[in-house]
Structures are given as C-alpha cells and as structure tokens.
C-alpha cells in the first residue's frame, strides 16, 4: 500500500495545522511567546511536547525577542527549531531577524498576519510580515489550512537546503481560527521527504568556534553576497521541492498560483486567504463572459520575477489587491509586482488597490467592484482605496 493512503483526514484550525506540520517535521526545539492570534499554536505545541507526542524541548521565554534568540541558538547547535508570532511580536523580533539571516540559521517561523498598533487591532493585515521584507528571510504566503500544514513542512526542507530562515505566513482568524478539512500525512512519508537536519558547522564543545564574528569592510560585503546568492538558489530549491512534494503528497504548489488565466485579458494579483473569495468572485465574472483570472503570489522572498513576468506580460490590465500598505508609497505587493514588470515585454498597465486593512471584510462584491473599477480606468494609480470612509 502506498504510504499516502494512510493519511488521516480531519478538521483543523489553521493554527493547529501549523502545529501538526511542526510535529510531522520532527522539530526538536520550540520557543515562543503568546500573542493573539498566534497563541493557540504555542499552546498546542506545548501540549504536544508535554505529553511526549512531539519529542522536542519547549523553551518558555519572557518576550518574542528572547524566543527568536533561543531558536537561532538552537538552530546553530544543530537542532531543527521553530517559533511563531504575530504583529507586535514580530516587530519586537526585528533586530534578531537580521541576526538569523546573517548567522545562516535555518529557523522556521510562522507569522499570523495581524495589524499593527495603534490603534490596537487583532485582525488580519499583511503589513507586519511585509515590513520584515529586507531582513533576508524567505517569506511564503498561504491560502488554506492544508496549504499551511504543507508549507510548514516544505519550509524546513527549503530553509535547511539554503541555510536561510523562513517565514510561513497565514491570515489572522480567517485561517488561524477557521476550521476546515485537512489531510495529515503519515509520519513515514514526511520522514522520507524531510531528512533529519544537519548543520555542517553546528556548535560543538569539542571543536569550539565563534559565530557571528566581526567582519570588517574587507569581508562583510562577501557575506552579504553569499546571502543574496542563497536567495537566488532558494528560488530554484523552492521549485524543486514543491515538485517533489507534489509527487509524494499529491499537492502542487508554485511560486505563484494561476487561476482561470488561460485566455484572461485582465488579471487580479493578490496573496493570502483573500484569494479564496477572489476565486469565487472571478468564477461569477467568468459566467458573465468576463475574461479575468487571478495570479496569487505564494513566494514573496525570494520574489519570483520570472514567473510574474511570464504570467502578466501581454495582458490588457492588471490590478494588485493589497491588504497592507507602505505609507508614503503604495501597497507592497503592488510595488513589487510593478518593479518586477519594469523592462518586461508587453507590460500591461498595473493598478494598485488597498483593501481590507485591520481585518475589514473583503467580500466577493468588493472584488467585482475593484475589477470593474480597473476596467473603467484609463491611467494606473498607485493607491485606489477600496471601501474607505473619507
């Protein structure tokens, strides 16, 4: 019997899908500090480690800064390491995010997208993770709880091949606290996909060495070059590992997901769980004869420039829907998409929409409104606000 047939189908919240992904990845060290809406990830993992269901060390700490510091250290000691956070917690980690990259610690972190304060808000928005864009972490966005579980497993595989920390991102509540069917794979199959983690220079008391040591101008730049090369390698590794994952587990992911794009003149670009609602809306538009499709960005860092160009070149118009904002410029996926398309052949006009900040619901009609608004407009704009009261 094929191993995959031993899978167990159950109903899980997004946060528990994370926990089962971590368990299947045989994580050895976990450190986390509770924050809504991430808390139930830490709670479930604390349960699993307390009962022995997951043989890992759970290090309780007094802040997110300490949580990330602990797992950077354990990762460098050769233990597969995990943390999770959201919003303010991620912001507090900021200094150490750079550290994880510079030290080449392949830590995996789940960030549950939550809006930043003030005003205090616990609901979903992508600005927290996107604001960590330049820390050198890989970032992978998700649409469903199954994808969250799958991506958690994939993240360890990719991170440990290129020695870069990796952030797996899911939406507050819309995924984290929503129950839906999830397939939990047999442990043996995940073991086959994800071999034990080995760090070539793991901390070893018999062979002591300094990590994160001083680098003067005559060396620092080479370290940075190597990190950039590792990101370029990560793009290839992402493709390889998602293909292997598809062969073994039957689910195919790519840097971008293409939905109803074959003959599409118009493309909506977005990331995260809003894609589900957008697909529903686009299917309705298709029934009305509209030639529209969706490109969902899954991999944000490294940014899949070639795939974005391949999908968007030659279309009539493109609308990027951002649930985030870089103040003083535009939505962040918009900015990145536009930059990727600069110099591409047959570049379509690209329109920037900002919607759903702080967890404001994005309904199918909102998607249809933005699509129709884009069709009407002649000149692209950087920010077209959807549903804001002014």
């Amino acid at each position, binding site marked *: 019997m094929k191993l995959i047939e031993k899978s167990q189908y159950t109903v899980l919240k997004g946060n528990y899908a994370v926990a089962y992904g971590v368990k299947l990845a045989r994580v050895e060290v976990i450190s986390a500090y509770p924050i809504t809406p991430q808390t139930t990830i830490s709670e479930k993992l604390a349960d699993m480690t307390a009962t022995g269901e997951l043989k890992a060390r759970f290090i309780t700490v007094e802040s997110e800064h300490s949580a990330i510091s602990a797992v950077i250290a354990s990762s460098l000691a050769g233990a597969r390491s995990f943390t999770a956070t959201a919003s303010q917690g991620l912001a507090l980690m900021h200094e150490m995010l750079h550290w994880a990259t510079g030290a080449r610690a392949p830590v995996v972190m789940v960030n549950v997208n939550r809006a930043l304060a003030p005003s205090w808000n616990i609901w979903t928005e992508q600005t927290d993770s996107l604001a960590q864009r330049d820390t050198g972490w890989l970032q992978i966005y998700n649409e469903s709880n199954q994808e969250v579980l799958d991506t958690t497993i994939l993240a360890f595989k990719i991170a440990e091949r290129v020695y870069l920390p990796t952030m797996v991102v899911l939406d*507050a509540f819309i995924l984290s606290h929503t*129950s*839906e069917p999830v397939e939990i794979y047999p442990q043996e199959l995940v073991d086959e996909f994800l071999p034990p983690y080995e760090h070539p220079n793991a901390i070893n008391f018999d062979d002591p060495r300094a990590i994160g040591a001083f680098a003067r101008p005559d060396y620092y730049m080479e370290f940075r070059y190597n990190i950039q090369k590792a990101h370029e390698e990560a793009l290839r590794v992402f493709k390889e590992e998602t293909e292997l994952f598809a062969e073994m587990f039957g689910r195919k992911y790519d840097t971008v997901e293409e939905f109803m794009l074959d003959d599409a003149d118009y493309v909506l670009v977005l990331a995260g769980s809003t894609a589900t609602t957008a697909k529903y809306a686009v299917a309705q538009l298709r029934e009305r004869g509209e030639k529209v499709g969706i490109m969902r960005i899954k991999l944000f860092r490294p940014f899949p420039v070639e795939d974005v160009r391949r999908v968007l070149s030659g279309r009539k118009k493109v609308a990027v829907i951002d649930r985030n904002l870089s103040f003083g410029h535009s939505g962040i996926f918009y900015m990145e998409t536009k930059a990727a398309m600069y110099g591409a052949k047959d570049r379509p006009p690209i329109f920037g929409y900002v919607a759903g900040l702080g967890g404001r619901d994005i309904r199918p009609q909102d998607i249809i409104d933005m699509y129709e608004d884009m069709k009407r407009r002649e000149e692209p704009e950087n920010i077209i606000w959807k549903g804001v009261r002014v």
Partner: protein
Amino acid sequence: MIEIRIHGRGGQGGVVASEILAKAFFKEGKYIQAFPHFGVERRGAPVAAFVRVGEPGSLFVRTNIYEPDHIIVLDPTLLTAVNVMEGLKPGGWIVVNTPQDPEELIKDVGIPPTYKVATVDATSIALKHRLGNRMNPIVNTAILGAFSRAFGAPSLENLLEAIREEVPVKPEENAAAAKEAYESTKILIPQEV
C-alpha cells in the same frame, strides 16, 4: 453552499457548536468551514459563529456570513436583544432553544411566516444531563440535535460521533443531550414556505 449562523452569548459554547456541526457534515462527505465572529468577546455578550457546507471542490469564500440560509439561537433572549434574523434568506430554518412551542414563539417574537421554526428546551435537557449549571447551562450540543432533526442533516449518528470527538468534557452526557433534543424538537413549517 449552505451558510448557517449560530447566535449565542459569550461562554455558551456557540463556537464549539459551529465546529461540531461542521465536523458532522464533514463525516457525511461534505466540504466545510467553521469559524467564530472574530472579536474580543466577553462572557454574556451576544456572539456569533458561522458554518459553511458544500460539495467537495466547490468554491467557498472567506468572509463573515451576512445572508445565512439558516440560523441557530442558543439563548431565546437574543431574539429580542439583537436582530438575529438579519439577512436570513426566506425559507430558512430558525432553530431556537426555548421551552415555548413554535406557535407561541412566532407570536411572541413576531417571526415572519416566510421562515420555518423549530424549538427545543435545550436548557432543561442540558441541566438534566448535568451540562453546566442553572446560571450557565451548556446547551450547545442539545441545540444541534434540534438542528439535525429540523434540517434533516447531518444525521443524528454523525452528529453524536462529532460531539464525542469534539467536546472537551462529558462526551457521553453531551451526546445523550443531543439525542434527547433530537427526539423532543417541535417543528412548524408555515404554508407560505
């Protein structure tokens, strides 16, 4: 896609009810989604939870439910405290925890004749099975028995199995309460429906 909205008060178990109901439908081969109204709820305040049920492979959405096909009400005082019928589609079920008959409830609350009504005294049933206490009876499993009876799905068998898997304490008492509610549900389908 069928959309169900559950109204309760913080602490009554409305969110767990949504998860049990979804899991029972999942056992029947449906694709499902269950989620709370995301907020910072306090004990006793009106809260809502949502369930979507559809065929596997059908397209779902990820928004709150604004126009439910059916509603479930865990606390009869909510019928006048908040507009639980807001957006409810004509022909939908209103399943209420109340000792009243559907006829009395319809008259008392002013339920339009475009809705089907099912009532069950889930509070008495919960107390009989020692679920919660008089101040805070846990009615979430009993009311699901009434929904199963009124709507015709999920089957009682799948519902009881989901209850046994999902409730944190007293699984057998909760299952027994749901079964008793299923058997004692009173139903009224107006001629207009």
